[in-house]
């Protein structure tokens, strides 16, 4: 198992290199002077000074040399500077990543519990009340624009009732205020994720419950709950987990609009404002982060699959 994990981790390296190369080339193609994002604005100065810097930093070197230098700088934690605000990108990200992860993970946990739970129950009681309500709810959840739902929540619970703050992440007041700030954005994000998960969990579970080995299990005379949990759910878990893992990058990227609605100081808002301002370096680095989160997700998928499926675990 350890060998398997190491193998999978090593496989991620070439992928990361390819993605970063793409990002680097993209950055080159935008035609923005690299100096503007590689040097802190305070250090810039006269034109000659810039030219000397350019030579010093090897910006006239061939593309690949510069690429590898860029990568090694990134590995040392130097992501360059925002061309709009002049702040180091590493600083921007360090502040915003925790906020986004907090939001994304909470939404992931809640939507998994609710979505998978309802999905499985609707599959077992197919065409029952829960199934019917769940199916309608899933379509409705997929049809309301996320941000509209968020605004409704703000209007009702923040503006009218005054139970929760309107936006931002933390206002003075410690942990309690932190939770208060989280409730509305997490609810919004959870709702929109639930819909998809519910559908998927239901259909997967239905497939599994119609398979032959479920009939075999029943023919042994074991109680129905054991059939459902031990034989049904155990087999439905793998495909469902795959979807959940791939939700992770979706959550980080997909929360752009939600973060804007709630002025949540995460990666999403920085992406949105960078796109508006044309701050390419920041966009590229955040894109790289999202790409990295996809790799992490697919790594998790591989590990879960191996844990849950003997064919993968024991095969070669």
């Amino acid at each position: 198992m350890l060998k398997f994990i190491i193998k999978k981790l090593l496989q991620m390296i070439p992928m990361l290199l390819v993605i970063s190369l793409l990002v680097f080339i993209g950055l080159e193609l935008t035609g923005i002077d690299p100096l503007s994002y590689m040097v802190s604005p305070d250090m810039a100065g006269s034109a000659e000074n810039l030219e000397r810097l350019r030579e010093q930093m090897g910006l006239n070197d061939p593309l690949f040399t510069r690429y590898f230098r860029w990568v090694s700088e990134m590995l040392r934690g130097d992501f360059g500077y925002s061309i709009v605000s002049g702040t180091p990108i590493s600083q921007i990200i360090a502040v915003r990543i925790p906020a986004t992860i907090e939001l994304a993970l909470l939404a992931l946990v809640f939507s998994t519990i609710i979505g998978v739970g309802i999905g499985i129950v609707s599959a077992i009681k197919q065409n029952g009340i829960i199934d019917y309500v769940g199916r309608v709810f899933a379509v409705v959840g997929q049809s309301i624009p996320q941000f509209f739902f968020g605004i409704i929540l703000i209007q009702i619970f923040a503006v009218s009732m005054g139970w929760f703050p309107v936006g931002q992440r933390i206002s003075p007041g410690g942990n309690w205020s932190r939770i208060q700030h989280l409730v509305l954005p997490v609810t919004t994000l959870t709702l929109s994720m639930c819909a998809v998960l519910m559908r998927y969990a239901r259909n997967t579970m239905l497939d599994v419950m119609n398979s032959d080995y479920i009939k075999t299990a029943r023919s042994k005379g074991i109680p129905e709950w054991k059939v459902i949990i031990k034989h049904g759910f155990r087999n439905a878990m793998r495909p469902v987990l795959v979807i959940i893992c791939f939700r992770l990058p979706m959550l980080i990227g997909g929360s752009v609009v939600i973060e804007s609605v709630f002025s949540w100081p995460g990666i999403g808002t920085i992406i949105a404002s960078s796109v508006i301002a044309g701050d390419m370096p920041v966009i590229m680095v955040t894109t790289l982060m999202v790409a990295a989160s996809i790799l992490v997700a697919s790594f998790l998928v591989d590990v879960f699959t191996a844990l849950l499926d003997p064919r993968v675990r024991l095969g070669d």
Partner: protein
Amino acid sequence: MNEKDIVLSVKNLNTSFISDRKEIKIVKNVSLDLKRATTLAIVGESGCGKSVTVHSIVKLMPKNARVKADYILYNQKRGDKITEFDLSKLEPYGKEMRALRGPDIGMVFQDPMSSLNPVYKVGDQVAEGLLEHNPKMSKEEAKEQVLAMFRELGIPDPENRINDFPYQFSGGMKQRVVIALAMICNPEIIIADEPTTALDVTIQAQIMELMKSLQTEKNKSIILITHNMGLVAEMADEVCVMYMGRIVEFGTLEHIFNNPSHPYTKALLRSVPVLGMEEGRLLETIPGITPNPAELKEGCEFADRCPDCRDECRKGTIPAFEVEPGHKVRCLNFNSFKEVD
């Protein structure tokens, strides 16, 4: 032979499926008796309702199925004590029905490839039923029994094989595991639903021999579902021929093979290659196709494909006639004989 020697007796079984708010009848007024320590074969083309019949008996049916029967009596024999259960009155997944699945009725399904749960070790899957029905048994004892069963069924190297997963087994070995799973609680009745269809011919023969020896040595009663007349000839004591959800002919093996009476049975036998067949004789096919059960008209279901079809054949329900003792045929060609139900 007294009536308690009938281990399973089904009377007027009707099964239908609800599809698109329409009820489609799949099994119609099927009655059959399984005698203790014999093999009853149910034969017919695919889609004739033979699988649905046995699944209705053991109540393993999808939710859109409606099963009705006058009775489905099972006579449990433990030593000298005989207890009678009416399966038609039991909840499909209730406690009483579950108690019978495994220790009294074992099932072997058609496709060994998909009948085993891919994520558990085969040994654990076989032991699961044993542990369920013997709550006091330790895991060690269960393992011993599974090992013994694997040895008996000719699975090589059982000590290591019980820790393997289904994907590590070949088709024939998998089917032995499935048989082990059905036999582990030592059931009275084994229902085998096309147990060898998915296997290749040499493996088929091995598996059938295995089942035959289990039956004769341990006095099991077997219901064998198949469309293979060759298997029927080897295995069966009595034969039910089904067509479109009805039993069209019933009799002993000799009755069916020496004196096939229903035009469908005759056609079925003519379409099977037999050893010693005269040279130059062509295998026949049955003309026409099996009709769609949703579009069946009244009268004999076989009428459209029958060479002897007459006008009366298209009216009402065709009764069964007893052409010789114990040999019943549902065909108007024999209406000079005594009508039976």
